[in-house]
């Protein structure tokens, strides 16, 4: 009645009906209720939550998608829209590959006993300790892996066994990798085009040319004259990075501006 063309967007925790509608929509709780905490960590570990607010962030991304698509329709047809998201639906969507697999076989996904990278994936997928750090190895056939690193103890496994016997393979592999430094293995793996990288912390990442070249950091000007460093938007448009040095507003900072600008126009 106030604005017929408005795009009205709404986020709830669990939707607006059902027994959970009054529950707090909090990230860790959503992770815990949606099965997500059984995807990370190893088979014998307790449930392991993602160490970031994945439900909040993925739901926010979905909300933006709905709003933008509704703006497109509004431009064509002049209609507004009502966009609804819930953290739970967003987090289920996030697990759509795992859930589709579960619907097909009704087996709760199992994390591998060691070096789990993804409960649905075969050996060697995971992170492995080396003599001086850690390396990640993604999808690679057992044959190519053996050839790249010369691990004879893995030669007895066939490609078909890389899921059913992934614990055995991972145990042998982690034992084989632990005595030599990361770089030693990475040179061999990259020479054979095996998908592998070193596991970095933020300090090592920050020193790397591949990070610096992104220019992902931007400075914001704080109202008191100070500065704060944060990340910019990850999307580039027409080759340009999207940056802005505008900090978060102070409470009510723009009341007057809005009143003088937008509202005065409406009153006219």
């Amino acid at each position, binding site marked *: 009645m106030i604005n017929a063309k408005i795009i009205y967007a709404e986020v709830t925790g*669990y939707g607006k009906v059902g*027994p959970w509608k009054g529950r*707090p929509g*909090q*990230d*860790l*709780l959503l992770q815990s*209720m*949606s*099965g997500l*905490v059984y995807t*990370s*960590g190893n088979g014998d570990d*307790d*449930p*392991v939550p993602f160490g*970031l607010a994945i439900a909040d*962030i*993925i739901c926010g*991304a*979905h909300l*933006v998608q*709905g709003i933008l*698509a*509704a703006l*497109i*329709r509004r431009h064509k047809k002049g209609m507004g*829209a*009502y*966009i*609804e*998201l819930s953290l739970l*639906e967003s987090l*289920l*969507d996030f*697990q759509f*590959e*795992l*859930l*589709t*697999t*579960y*619907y097909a076989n*009704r087996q*709760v*996904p199992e994390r591998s006993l060691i070096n*789990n990278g993804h409960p649905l994936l075969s050996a060697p997928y*995971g*992170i492995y300790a080396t003599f001086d750090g850690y390396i*990640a190895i993604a999808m690679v056939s057992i044959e190519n892996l053996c050839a790249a690193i010369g691990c004879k103890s893995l030669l007895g496994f066939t490609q078909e066994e890389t899921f059913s016997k992934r614990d055995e393979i991972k145990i042998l592999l982690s034992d084989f990798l632990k005595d030599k430094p990361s770089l030693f293995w990475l040179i061999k793996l990259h020479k054979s085009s095996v998908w592998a990288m070193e*596991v*970095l*912390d*933020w*300090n090592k990442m920050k020193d790397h040319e591949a990070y610096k070249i992104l220019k992902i950091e931007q400075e914001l000007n704080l109202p008191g004259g100070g500065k704060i*460093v944060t*990340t910019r938007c*990850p*999307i580039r448009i*027409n080759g340009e990075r999207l940056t802005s040095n505008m900090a978060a507003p102070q409470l009510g900072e723009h009341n007057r501006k809005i009143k003088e600008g937008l509202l005065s126009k409406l009153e006219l």
Partner: protein
Amino acid sequence: MKLLEDVIVIDFSQFLSGPSAGLRLADMGAQVIKIEKPTTGDICRDLYVSDVMIEGESTIFHAINRNKQSYSADLKNAVDLGKVKQLIAKADVMIHNFRTGVMDRLGLDYLTVKQINPGIIYAEITGYGNEGPWKDHPGQDLLLQSVSGLAWLTNNNHNMPTPMGVAVVDILAGAHVAQGILATLYKKMISGEGALVQVSMFESILDFQFEVLTCFYNDGNQLPVRSSVNNGHAYISAPYGIYKTADGYLALAMGNIIVLADLLKCDGLKKYADSADWFTMRDEIKSILADHLVKQKTNHWLAILEPADIWCAKVMNYEQLMQEEGYKVLEMELDVQTSNGLNITTTRCPIRIDGERLSSHIGAPMLGEHNSLLDRQFAIQ
């Protein structure tokens, strides 16, 4: 009317990042056409997970590619390439996630495509961007999690770096590229101009860490320290985490330790009256709490905590979740059917529009299934 009705998307991408963006656009009503290599198609068609196949097909391929069309074309063959260019000429959006240089060699780089279709939204996902020492490295989820510091945020402090067990980098890069596509499509409607939208998985996974990276940048580059026990988030105080009970697990989010001490009758916590200690002494606090919570069943604790509005939940796996009314009322499951009669249950789009769930029952296409249909629709010569 669907939000993206009449929007035509030509999608060259494979695996998950680009195709997950295409899926969302299809959900909202766009016509999404996968351009696939003859004989093999999207590599994901043969990516079997967990040894699960549905009548010989990959479950994840069907989840990612439902409600799309398939046009098979050999981009190295001049005739096929010519046809694809005719499709591009009539499209609103194209998406690819090839490695740097591949589209240039095929003559499908942005500058060339712009000559065919000046108004196109050209979207690309790379692993690490188009420059720098890692530009030729594969953009693979686990590897991006590993180089970006992400693996140091999950699990307890004594554990190895622990990857998140879902392809979070692919999915976020897909979400970001979908946002860029939709925003530039909107701008195109106003100005008529096309755009180049670029997302790298590396930037997407750094964006995902924006809160914690902002702490790191501004506090003298202190690395995150996961709590030694019951870690939920490296930057959050006790009790935040998951706790074992006598018959399962209980999640506890942010909460007042003294209030919890009273409610749970956990006397050991009473000495932590200063809320500053809830962060600095979180390992101690969590250990006391863990020893206490394991003595009773989950429902015992929930019956105490929920009426007191403490943020808590029972930890569930898929099997337990699906027995819950709270799951059932969402009607999240979607049955789709392929043209050859294969039925697959997957999840629907999480976005509801004007009170409606978005649920198309069209399954993933067979390779090249829509070549002749599309040749007619677009009068391809």
